């Protein structure tokens, strides 16, 4: 498979729905964002700078990843039957195809093509379903500290979303600017800026500013974020005029991880709490995730690698007690 990192990853990160503040594009399933190269320290540091270099504040990471650790513990909802085929064509290209059938009627098939050689840039990820809707991203690392991304989303022949962003990773801070759906003719668009600063090795504080404009209307929303990282836990809080989001991630041991999430929306006048856990049994090549939330939804997923075959089996079920709805899913991943 060469240096294609995505193909070798046994547990692809789920898409991040919490990125709703930015125009809604997520990485296609099976792929994660490539990491930015580590910071190259300047040469010829003075003695004073050498002292600072001995205890440098770490880069806090991306703003969108503040709640990611907790969200990864929760099971992903899946309905119907799904088959995913990962195939590496060369060191630079990998194809992921998956067929999704909901109940007995085929909902669609999607082919994702990427040159997901993560050590090299640019990275291009493309995703097209059987109706012709395209979801594509081009990620390029301009320098050791600056990474840019351009993303498009179409529904059949019509462009629905287009955005570009640039991320700058400093020694102890990260700043991102995103421009979403700019339309010079109409005079509309969305600008999202993120800033995250390490205050201490454990504490990071930051903020987000969203400015949207269209003819006859403009507005802005601001929110603040704080993240505290302990020995085996991460506590994150985001609050602003739109609401609040708190998450707590706890790694009990190598087998057990837990997550608790609280969300409140002042616009929807709604709050919810979710509790989730992840059990890893590497000797059985098994991973189990379960969750329960305040909306009386109980869900679980079971993923098992069927070694020595290059197959993974995924079973998923979600039960909504309040609405008396039950969803179950079955998936096989090959490659």
């Amino acid at each position, binding site marked *: 498979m060469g240096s294609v990192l995505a193909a070798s990853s046994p547990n692809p990160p789920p898409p991040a729905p919490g990125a709703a503040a930015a125009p809604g594009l997520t990485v296609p399933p099976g792929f994660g964002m490539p990491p930015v190269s580590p910071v190259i320290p300047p040469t010829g540091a003075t003695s004073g700078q050498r002292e600072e270099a001995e205890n440098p504040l770490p880069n806090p990471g991306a703003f969108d990843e503040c709640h990611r650790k907790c969200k990864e513990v929760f099971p992903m909802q899946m309905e119907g039957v799904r088959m995913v085929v990962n195939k590496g064509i060369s060191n630079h290209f990998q194809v992921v195809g998956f067929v999704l059938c909901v109940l007995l009627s085929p909902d669609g098939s999607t082919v994702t093509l990427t040159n997901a050689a993560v050590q090299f840039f640019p990275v291009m990820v493309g995703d097209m379903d059987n109706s012709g809707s395209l979801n594509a991203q081009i990620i390029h690392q301009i320098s050791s500290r600056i990474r840019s991304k351009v993303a498009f989303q179409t529904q059949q022949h019509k462009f629905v979303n287009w955005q570009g962003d640039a991320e700058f990773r400093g020694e102890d801070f990260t700043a991102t600017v995103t421009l979403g759906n700019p339309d010079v003719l109409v005079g509309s668009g969305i600008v999202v800026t993120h800033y995250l600063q390490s205050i201490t090795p454990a504490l990071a504080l930051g903020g987000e500013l969203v400015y949207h404009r269209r003819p006859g209307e403009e507005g802005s929303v601001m929110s603040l974020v704080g993240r505290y990282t302990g020995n085996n836990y991460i506590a994150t809080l985001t609050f602003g005029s739109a609401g609040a989001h708190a998450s707590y991630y706890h790694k009990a041991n190598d087998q057990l991880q*837990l*997550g608790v999430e609280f969300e409140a929306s002042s616009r929807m006048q709604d*709050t919810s709490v979710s509790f989730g856990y992840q059990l890893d*049994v590497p000797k059985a090549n098994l991973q189990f995730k379960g969750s329960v939330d305040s909306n009386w939804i109980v869900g679980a997923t079971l993923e098992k690698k069927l070694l020595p075959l290059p197959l993974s089996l995924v079973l998923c079920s979600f039960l909504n007690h309040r609405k008396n709805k039950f969803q179950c899913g079955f998936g096989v991943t090959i490659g």
Partner: protein
Amino acid sequence: MSGANGKKGPSSGVMDWIRSACRFATDRNDFRRNLLVNLGLFAAGVWVARNLSDFDLMSPQPVT
């Protein structure tokens, strides 16, 4: 009639307070009530995660 002017004893005031507190606690459409309940559930979840997760799944079974 005693209390015709609406002078209530302290026990009726307490009962009224308890009644309004119960109505608040059981009103599922009240945003503030839901917020308080869910904050309490979040705190309970964090406590469970920190204090009740110290079991080792890979430890050997105890000999009986």
